[in-house]
Structures are given as C-alpha cells and as structure tokens.
C-alpha cells in the first residue's frame, strides 16, 4: 500500500514539475531509421536545428490537403527561416508504389525544405499519426511541444506563430 502512496506522490511531483516549465514536452522525438529522399539511410536522431525549433510534417503525394499545405508553406518558407531560423522536415509516408516518385515531385514543385521517406510507416507509427497531414513542432531540445491534425487553408500562419513563441521562450496556447 505504502508503495502506491509513494508512486502517487512521485507522480504528483512530476506533474507539478511539468506544469512549472514553460512548454510541456508532449514526448521526445523517437529514434527511428527512415530514408532520405535519395534513398539513403537516415535516423531521426539526425534531425536537429542548433537549438532552434523544428517542424515535422507527415504527408503523401496522394493526399490533397498535404500537397496544398506544402505548396503554401513553400511560398513563405524562406521568410520563415530568415525570421525564426526554423527548419522543416516533410516526412512522406508514400509506400513503394509512390515513394520513388517523391524526389521528382519535390524538385518539380521546387520545394525548398528537407524531405524524408517513411515508406513502411515506421516513424508514422512511432509518432501515432492516424492520417496525413499531421504536423508536429519541436522545441530546441528535440521535444514535441505542439501538434496539429489536418490542414485548412491558412493553417501555416498558426504554425509560424507557434514557432515564434517557442523561439522567444514564450508559453504556447
């Protein structure tokens, strides 16, 4: 019985500990082997941005809102980088039917951000993505602090507001 009391006390302590920090980490980025858009090996621990925020989006070539989302982000991406130093990794969950078409699609559409391939959904599963598009924002320590499901025209404004708050050490929400 006493053990439970201690466990409960510990849990309480942790909860208080969390609520005191600025932005609660939802979870840290899982380490999963995926691929670069050229087909080379890439482990997600290589995702970093020198202590600045990172955006990770999940998308697929067959997903209409995803294509709209990335086209929209691409138009403002340079400004985003200049203003906040943010880095975007767009993780394609296209399976082998279309994964080899991702590289020419990305280049053909002149997308400027980094693109990765997750052809069997290993990272998708580790990050509990149900359906694309699904967007995560990571703080400078690589912890996921914000996530968003779906894409509606204009959602990219929301993303950059969150990134700015994180970069400035302000509380999101």
């Amino acid at each position: 019985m006493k053990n439970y009391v201690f466990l409960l006390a510990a849990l309480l302590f942790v909860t208080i500990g969390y609520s005191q920090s600025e932005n609660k980490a939802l979870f840290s980025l899982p380490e999963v082997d995926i691929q670069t858009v050229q087909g080379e090996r890439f482990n997600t621990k290589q995702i970093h941005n020198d202590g600045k925020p990172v955006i990770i989006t999940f998308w697929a070539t067959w997903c209409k809102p995803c294509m709209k989302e990335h086209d929209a982000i691409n138009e403002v991406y340079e400004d985003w980088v200049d203003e906040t130093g943010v880095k975007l990794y767009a993780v394609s969950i296209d399976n082998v039917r279309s994964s080899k078409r991702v590289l020419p699609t990305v280049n053909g559409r002149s997308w400027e951000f980094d693109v990765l391939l997750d052809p069997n959904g290993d990272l998708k599963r580790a990050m509990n993505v149900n359906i694309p598009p699904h967007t995560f924002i990571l703080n400078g320590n690589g912890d996921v602090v914000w996530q968003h499901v779906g894409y509606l025209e204009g959602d990219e404004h929301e993303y950059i507001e969150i990134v700015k708050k994180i970069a400035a050490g302000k509380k999101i929400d």
Partner: protein
Amino acid sequence: MMTTLATRAQNFLEQGQVNGNVQIDAQYYSEDDKLGITDSLLNFRKFGLNAFSNVIYTNGDFSAGLRLEGYLNPMLGFDDRYEGIGVPYWFAKYKVGTLEMTAGHFYEQFGSGLILRSWEEWTLGYDNNFYGFNARFSPYKGIMLKGLVGTQRYFWEPYEAGNRGIVKGFDGDFYLNEMFDGIADAKTKISLGGSFVSKYEKTGNVFYTRNREFLVDSIPWIETTTYEMTIPHNVGSWAARTNIAHGGFNFYGEYARKGADPNATNNYIYREGSAVYSTLSYSTKGLGIFLATKWIDNMSYKSKLSESGNPSMLDINYLPAISKEHQYSMATMYPYATQPNGEFGLQGQVIYTIPKKSAIGGRYGTTLTFNYALAKSIEKDSIYSDVTGGVTGTEGYNSNFFSIGDLTYYQDLNLTIDKKFSPKVKAKAAYFHQTYNLHVIEDNLYDDKNMVYANIGVLDVTYKFNSRNSLRAELQGLFTKEDDGDWLALMLEYNVSPTWFFSIQDEFNYGNPVDDKQVHYYNVSFGYTQKSNRFSVRYGRQREGLLCVGGVCRYVPASTGLTLTITSSF
C-alpha cells in the same frame, strides 16, 4: 528502502513517456428507397463502429506498446470476421548498441516489398502484421541486417499449429559510400541489398478432379479422374536490389524470385514466380522526370496457401500497383489493383514548374504535371494445347521474361495544371483519360469484353477572403458510355483556419442507363479541429465502389446515414 523505491518510481516516471492516439469511426445507417437499402438488408445492424487506440511507452532505449481495436459491429464494407474487440498488436522493443530487438507484433519491409512487407491501413481494414521476433543489427557502418520469424494476423483467429504458415526472413542493406571511406564523398551513391524469405506450412496433399468429355455412339460421356498433388511444405523466395544516385539521377532496381508454390490464387500450379520493379528519375529545381516499370509473374505469396479473395489476408509480400493514386473522387472511380498472377506495368511522369514572373508562368508561377500509366497482361503460352491458362497440378504455362501480352488491364493518361492567379485566388485544372478492364479488375475474367473508357475533368478553385477564411469549390465530370454512365460532382467547402470547416457535396449519376439509378449522392460535412483532436460529422449517401490505398482495394457498398469520426493524438 522506501527512499530507493521512491527514487526509482520517480526516475521511471520522469524518464519514461507515454504517447498514443485514438480513432473512432461510427456510422448510423438509414433505410433508403432510392438505393434499395432496407433494415433487413442491413441485417438490422443500424449502427457500425470501428475504433482503435495505440499506446506507446518509451523509456530510453526501451519501448513497449499496444493497439486496442474494436469493431462493434464492423462498419459496412468491412468483413464480418472483424467483429469483436481485442489487442491484435503489442510489442516490446529494446536497443543495445547497434542491435534492436522486437518481441511481439511488428511491421517490416525488405527492399520494395516484392517478397516481404507487413503493413496496416486502417481505412482498408488491412493488417498483415507478424507475431514473433524481429532483429535489426548493424555490425559495421553502412551495413544493416534484419532477421525475423513470425506468424501473421488473420482477423481475430489466434495462431495454432497448422492453421497457417510460419514465415522466416533475412535481409541485408549495404550502403557502399558509408562502408568505404575512399568513396564517402563520391558523387555517385550506391547501395546494394538482398533478402531471403521462407514460408513453412504444414499441409496435407491437395486433391482435385479433372473431367474429360467424349462421345461413344453419339452418347456423351464424362470421365472424371481424381489426382493427388504433392504440396511443398517450404516455399522460399529471394530478391536482390540496388539504388544508385548520381547528381539529379536516381535509379532503383529489384529482382525477385519465388519457388514452386501451388496456391488458391494461382489455381494450384507449380510454376515458379518472378518479379522486377525498377524506377529511374531525373530531377532538378523546377523539373522532375520519373519512369517506372514492373513485370510480375505468378507472385502471390501468402502464409496460407488456400487463402484468397477479399479482403486480402496473410500476404507475405507486396506488389505495388503502377498507376498514380489520384486525389479527386471522380478520378478514383476506376482505380487499379495489382494482378498478382501476372502483369506488365509502365509509368511515366513529368512535373515542371514554370518560373515565377515569367510570361507563361505568371506572377506566381504555374506547375504542370503529366502522368501516364499502363498495365497489361504478360504473354502466357499454354503447355497443354487443349486447355488454356494455368491447369491445376501442372507447371501451368510458359512465359518469357519481360514478355508483354495483348490484353490491356488499365491505362491512365492525365494532366494537371496548378496556378496561383493572385494572393486570393488559386486554381487547379485536371484532365484524365482512363481505360479500365472491369472484367479483369473486378470479376477475375481475363478478357476484353467489359472495357470502360472514361474521360474526367476537374476544376478546383480556392478563394481566400483573408488569412483565416477561405472558400473552395470543386467541379468534376466523368463521361463514359460504359458501366454506370456519366457523372457530375460539385463540392463547396468553407474553411476557417485553424479550427473548422463546413462542406456540401453532390455526386450525380445523371447518365446511368437505368433510370432508377440516376441518384444524387449528396453529403453534408462539418469538422472541428482543436490541436491534435479532430471531430467530423457527415450525413449523406456513400456510393458503391472500390476504396484503394497503395493498390490494395476494399469494396464499399452503397449506404445512407450519419458518420462520426473522432481522431486524437497525445
């Protein structure tokens, strides 16, 4: 003692983290005279619910997780054998150095999956996860080895000795530029890979009968002979692959072979299987060119030889469909599904972005996408002149490597133009010309007596009132003289970023040759997003059709009713 425990508990909680997700799809069905839906047709199941939840616990190099699934009852279009609730997927994973071990259920893919791929797709009700042990090990930089042993998921039926096969597999990836320092910075990046997979299935011999008809004194006689087939207990397969990247070029090629595997899909013939899949792309900023080809001969590979049909279960391998997966509903009316017994496929695509501020590109640039896909039969020569096709208990047929047959299974030619006219207006126009062999794709009849030729046009316009409010209109038309005839579809969607959307849609089958089937498939939807929570409600009619993801399709019957979807991640 108490302090230690408390510290431990605290460490356990502080370092460990839990994340997960939930999705609930619920449907309430109504009777609908127009679609001929009555309560008795629905077996009085007015309500369908499919739901899952994943929970993953991670602590450093250890993680464990599970997925709870419930089908109470399964929604229309999902197999009745899914009815129930349980945990079809759980795992524990640990990593020490460069070795990662998984015990429990897992998903894995070797190369492009021609001989092994396990995956899941919720919308299809597809899950062929392995239950067993999986190891990934990197003995040296640039080398990744994988090994696995397991049995596969079959609805809710637990594995028992003999009720399905056991799969073993081994795979290696060799990234040459990582392995050899001398070429680490070379412009050409090469990787090689190979895999071996074996299935063991305890099975008795298969009996089959063959009839011979003949006349004696003008009286017809039938002579029936029963044959006994020896079934191989072990079916092996192997594959080799390479990926070469140089500058803007990227090449991938894989070749696979499978041993004699008489099964329900190939009509129990002994012929060995083979497959080739290769892609080549060239791309630079603003231009992407892609070419793909594949050739498949007798490559159905399942962990139970008598399993076939829909839904597709116990697949060990994955044979991708070669055509492009489209984003618009009319363009997906006639989707292609891979024919595992044999097909040749070809795909080409060019994407070109006309630069901004050029005469043709306009101020904001224009993107053109051209895509062509073709799937045809392969040439099969009968071994026995009196019977065509694969005769049970024989080698089946002869086929030359990479031979192309006369029968067209599918063809799709399409062009899309994306253009932004002003900061407020964006538009997309698309044209598709599709040839769909309905007999081959839906009825397993290998002839050209039911070909559907469809022309499809799409216009998609988005108007932004301001950074948060936008209206999107989608107009589509499908024109064909065959099957269900012509369709027109209109959709209006109002979005308020980042929170909610509202849409109305009507798909009208005005050209159906049967007057009673000229139905309006109307839908009204509403959605609300709050961070990673999403609620959507839809009321209306669902048209009958094939829902496909990655070339695997699920038949969806027509229905009318209310659908509620809740998804959430934490």
